[in-house]
């Protein structure tokens, strides 16, 4: 029997070939991360230093998760509104939304954090106090409107607001792209049935658009988790800040920061697996195109 074909059926391929072919498809990267994780976890259990670092970092995990969740939720609302503004035919709404998006995209997030925390929040509080002084004769002094001080707004709150505003700008563009990816005929069909613009958006365009932008929004959530580390710059005690404090006090920079990086990596990998699962689910249940 002579074999002349170049590609052999699976059964006739050599063992090495089959092994290499299968091995190449393995997620080796995940294995490496898992091994490092096991190593670090082993250290956390056996070494006093690592277990001290771990319990210290754990103190900040609540703040990290809180900041991420709240800022991301606010960013979704801001982004949806600004994204609707970006596709609006009303020139006033369109220009306000575009101005916001352009400013946000042109300033680094760290700088936005500083500006919002140290400029915008104090200015807003001044405004509230001035307003309070105006209406004081009506509602009577003293009242909270005249007596709010900048230090009454904790830095955690300022950071959450700043991250929400920053990410809202990016999500606005995600929502805009999603809305514009829905074919024009959908809006026309809805309008031809007598629906108003708002009804057509709510019942026809947005349900389809949001489905399409779920994967990029999931990635934004991961990015938000990572960027929440910026709040440490303002002294908010998230895991990064706890690590900085511990390292500065103990001089154990290497062990502390490796552990810190691993904390973020563990969380982001879990989340990205979640996002991938969501994408697969949407693809397999996806029902046609608009």
């Amino acid at each position, binding site marked *: 029997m002579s074999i002349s074909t170049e590609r052999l059926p699976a059964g006739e391929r050599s063992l090495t070939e089959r092994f290499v072919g299968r091995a190449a498809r393995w997620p080796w990267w995940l294995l490496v991360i898992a091994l490092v994780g096991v190593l670090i976890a082993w250290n956390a259990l056996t070494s006093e230093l690592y277990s001290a670092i771990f319990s210290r970092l754990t103190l900040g995990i609540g703040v990290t998760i809180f900041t991420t969740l709240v800022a991301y939720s606010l960013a979704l609302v801001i982004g949806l509104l600004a994204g609707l503004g970006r596709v609006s035919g009303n020139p006033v709404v369109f220009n306000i939304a575009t101005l916001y998006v352009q400013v946000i995209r042109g300033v680094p997030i760290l700088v936005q954090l500083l500006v919002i925390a140290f400029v915008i929040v104090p200015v807003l509080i001044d405004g509230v106090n001035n307003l309070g002084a105006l209406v004081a004769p009506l509602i009577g002094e003293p009242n909270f409107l005249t007596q709010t001080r900048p230090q009454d707004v904790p830095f955690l709150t300022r950071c959450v607001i700043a991250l929400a505003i920053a990410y809202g700008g990016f999500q606005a563009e995600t929502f805009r792209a999603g809305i514009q990816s829905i*074919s024009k005929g*959908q809006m*026309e*069909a*809805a309008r031809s*049935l*007598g629906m108003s613009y708002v009804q057509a958006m709510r019942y026809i365009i947005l349900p389809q658009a949001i489905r399409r932008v779920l994967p990029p929004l999931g990635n934004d959530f991961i990015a938000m988790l990572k960027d929440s580390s910026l709040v440490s710059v303002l002294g908010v005690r998230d895991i990064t800040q706890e690590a900085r404090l511990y390292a500065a006090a103990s001089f154990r920079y290497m062990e502390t920061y490796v552990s810190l990086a691993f904390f973020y990596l563990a969380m982001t990998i879990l989340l990205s697996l979640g996002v991938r699962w969501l994408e697969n689910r949407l693809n397999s249940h996806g029902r046609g*195109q608009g």
Partner: protein
Amino acid sequence: MSMVAAPPTGDPSAMIIIKNLVKEFHGLRAVDDVSLTVARGKVTVIIGPSGSGKSTLLRCINHLEVPTSGDIWVDGIHLTHHAKDINAVRAEVGMVFQQFNLFPHLTALQNVMLAQRVVRKRSEAEAREIAMQQLARVGIPEKANAYPAQLSGGQQQRVAIARALAMNPKIMLFDEPTSALDPEMIKEVLDVMLELARSGMTMVVVTHEMGFARNAADEVVFMDRGRIVEQGPPDVLFRQPREARTRAFLSQILR
């Protein structure tokens, strides 16, 4: 308040009156000074070469295209730019598109129910009952719970017709309803349209289906380069066209 143009005729048999309609796109006149009256309960078929402005004319009737100038009255109501009026008029004017434009995230039944609920404010039960009646009328009640992607082109177009009919419109506009269909599915859609025409619905149909024009039309309008070249009953227009351009077009299409 600006001057509201009075209906040009007191003719109660007119359902749609179009006067001196002009629609320009970037300086090009897609519709060039067209006047047309569509009688109540009659079927008007608009034919003509592609780019002749027939779809644009149709889309002006429910303001999917806002006219550059000219006036349109639908059942005696003057179409203005006022959004509230437009939504009210659109609810009375059903439209069927070349690309069906079903809502892909909703089932056939939900497609037919949605506008009844949010525009007509019908109850869930009432909307469902009417939707099922209309789906039965177009011959696919068994597909009520299918999503558009699970339906053939002909079935999708029939759901689209049911969706428009469920609003109880006074007028139905068809914009090349069979042009995107495979040949074997054209008949099932035309049959539904024929039945609708016999039931006395006022219809304006843009189509290349000359057989439908012959069988169903009360009036055939031939358009070329944004203008109405000739119009008349199908017997006259197809057998004895007056204009050379009409003859040239028909000879190409009828062979």
